[in-house]
């Protein structure tokens, strides 16, 4: 779990000017970060190459960090998470409320972030898959996914984990049927459903409410 704020080592002038711009605008430092595999900038383009569409400033808290982001009306929450905050763990499978790959927890409830406009998230508390582990320690449901092969291709996994986390916070020890009911909005085309349900049940049994 790399340090998401430790990014500004690039010599790319675009990134530096963007960073300065953001700092001048009073935003938190977490906006510019690096793709670890590449070690290159992920900062947004300079303003002369940005869309001229009107923007609204929203404030939201993601995984405990406060962010202030200027968003276009047409942006969705998942676009803000992935494109602006570099939280690419949240996936887009359909972009239209059919698959659940984009599930995040918003104000305590699992939602499809592809189908939430960014402006609606003003003031919201959001948890994404990157926020599940704490202090390098996987959550109980993450750990169960590791042990029981919860991910096959892994593309639906973040969404499954978020819905499961929301379930476990309401029902600490769900049985298999309750897990299936709760997770019905999260498709898995690898059809790894049995393993996912087993993992969520196991997480509940192990932690008995501390998930």
């Amino acid at each position, binding site marked *: 779990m790399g340090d998401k704020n430790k990014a500004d080592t690039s010599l790319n002038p675009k990134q530096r000017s963007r960073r300065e711009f953001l700092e001048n605008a009073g935003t938190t430092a977490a906006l510019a970060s690096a793709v670890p595999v590449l070690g290159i*900038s992920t900062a947004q383009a300079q303003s002369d190459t940005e869309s001229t569409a009107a923007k609204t400033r929203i404030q939201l808290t993601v995984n405990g960090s406060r962010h202030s982001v200027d968003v276009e009306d047409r942006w969705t929450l998942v676009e803000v998470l992935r494109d602006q905050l570099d939280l690419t763990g949240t996936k887009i499978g359909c972009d239209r409320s059919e698959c659940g790959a984009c599930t995040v927890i918003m104000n305590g409830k699992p939602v499809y972030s592809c189908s939430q406009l960014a402006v609606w998230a003003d003031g919201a508390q959001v948890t994404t898959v990157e926020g599940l582990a704490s202090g390098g320690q996987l959550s109980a449901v993450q750990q169960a996914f590791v042990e029981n092969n919860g991910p096959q291709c892994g593309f639906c996994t973040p969404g499954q984990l978020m819905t499961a986390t929301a379930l476990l916070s309401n029902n600490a020890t769900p049985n298999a049927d309750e897990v299936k009911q709760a997770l019905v909005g999260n498709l898995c085309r690898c059809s790894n459903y049995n393993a996912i349900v087993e993992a969520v049940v196991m997480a509940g049994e192990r932690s008995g409410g501390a998930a």
Partner: protein
Amino acid sequence: MSEAIHIGLDPLNTIGNATARVDAVERVTGEAKYSRDFKLPGMLYAQILRSPHPHARIRAIDTSAAEALPGVRAVITGDNASVVWGAGSVSGGRQYNDPTKDATLHRRYIFNNPLRFVGDSVAAVAAIDRHTAEQALALIKVDYEELPFVLEPEAALEPGAPQVWPDGNLCPDFRNNFEPMVSNLGDVEAGFAEADQIFEERYETSFIHNAQMEPRAALAHWEADKLTLYSPTQGISNCRHDTARDLGLQDHQVRIICNYMGGGFGNKNQNQDADLVAATLSKQAGAPVMLEFSRRDDWLGVHGRWPTVQYYKIGAKNDGTVTAIQMRGYSGMGPYRKNSGGISGMDVYACPNRLRSISPVYTNRTTSGNFRAPSEPHGFYGVESMMDEVAYKLGVDPVEFTLKNMRRPTDDQPFTNYSLDEVITRGAEQFDWASRRKTTPGSDEGPIKRGSGFSFMMFRAGVGTSSAIVRVDAQRQYTLFVGVTDIGPGAKTTMGMIAAEELGVPLDQVEVVAGDTDRCPYSVGESGSRTTIQTGYAVMQAAKDLNQQIADSGMPTGSDVLIASATPNPSTDGKTRQCFGAHFVEVEVDTRIGTTRIVKYTTVHESGRIINPTTARDQIRGATLQGIGQALHEDLLYDPASGQPLTTGYYRARHLTHLDIPEIDVTFIEVDDGYGPFGAKTAGEAGIILAPAALANAISNAIGVRMTSLPISRDKILEAMA
């Protein structure tokens, strides 16, 4: 946790022990980077404009308004970008290579005119963000001349049918002859003459989409004449070679990166048109380009299992001996022949008289392509439904009937090993076949009826070539370089386990480097269930070589390293090598509303030695569930009047959800036949082959009516009971 039952072999040091994936933590924390998760400085976003018509000629395209939109950096059409997508259309439908590219008569370009299906690419735009690119698409004006279209393979062969290509709608073979694919063994007419009874039936199977969760994307980036592509591909080596060939580059000028892929299920062990479109746009715009498919784009542009029609004629004696099998089949390929159009299954019977003729046919639907076990699930459904029907008509238990008629090793054609008797017998016992099946189909009183069905298979597990490199440093840290990509089955982990076993070290002492053609040697690609056998064997041989080097010269010291590589070309000494399996399922059909509920599902597989029990279990369960979806629900519908696809997303395509999932019992009979890495065989496709046949037979056993069309959806059951 429900564990698979393992019979026959004990675990080795690493192999055979349930093992968490080497990249499991990345997968559960969101750190795993899929193609769309990469960003490059100055990266543009691209979108494709697709044909709204099933068949149309482009009279003119006006892109001026799109080009004038602020933020648009490149617009390409067939007028200014003529790139052949070689793997997109192949005479004979074989693996794409230099000779087939040269031979292919019906070329497919990244933009084609005429357009031959709804979704055929018309133009592509790169812009500073995805919304600007979307806006630009709407500004492209296209003058279409609509042409007549045809959707069904049989209709496409009728005289006067709309012509998808000028030479007729039967696809050419690899010599560009317009002939069906025929295989003829023995003498079927003699076999029919010998028979006491003749059975005939027509079967039909649907067009279904691979529907992997990650929609297609491609990020292209040029540095001088070197192209780097981040692309979800099942085979980085093939993707590189295909892309280089299509763009007129040398292999070393193309780098493919794919560490994680959100599912494949076949048909992506080459390059994709998305790769070529992104590369072309990127060159034109002078900036990195991320091309993103929407879910609808993916549905229209990325192909699915070919729909088929199968006419069977079977001759049998009253004692249950099959004397002749004949099948005439038609496969709907869409307007390009990307893959074979095969319909397999009859070769698992020993009957000496077998005649098969398959016509792959052009239509104006989305192009078909390989889907997990490309020729099998629909073919096994057809032939095993047929045989089930014959068995019941002759009053024979289908399991007995199979044991009597299935193919066995012969003196002329020995196998490396043969487990089918044990697989079937054990499955029947575990499932309690004798008491669960209805001796008289449909005999349950009342509207809710139970019945049981069975299917069996053997499937190729041949050996072949791949490469591996393994290195050790003075700290005794081993690094394995393999050109695999992990699309779900867990190849990185499997390769690491094979290396650890052979090297005699724990798995955590082996780092696996994969998914990057600049760092990894050739691997066959995640298709045909071949990675474990082929690349795994190369890993084993490279590790053996390294062990020898260490024995000869000791561990390296200081900054020195020892490196071994292997590209073995193993053989099976003329023997046939197969994996084996049998599925048994009990269903409960509510004949008032047409629903099918699975009561019990038992699978028994012999896939050689199992490397990682955890991932192997879920290959069987996942593939079986996909097969259940194919059997009961999945069907890409087209409106016959307009040629429009009606199911271009998850919602209407009716894939299984959490609520549809039964328990699947998995048993592995483990064998080491002395071939492959530690005796491992194919597993990834095995489960899907059997599910449609087993379920269809179970439903027929419950309701007493043979179901001759997939999917066996509620409406069809209601119609059968009416």
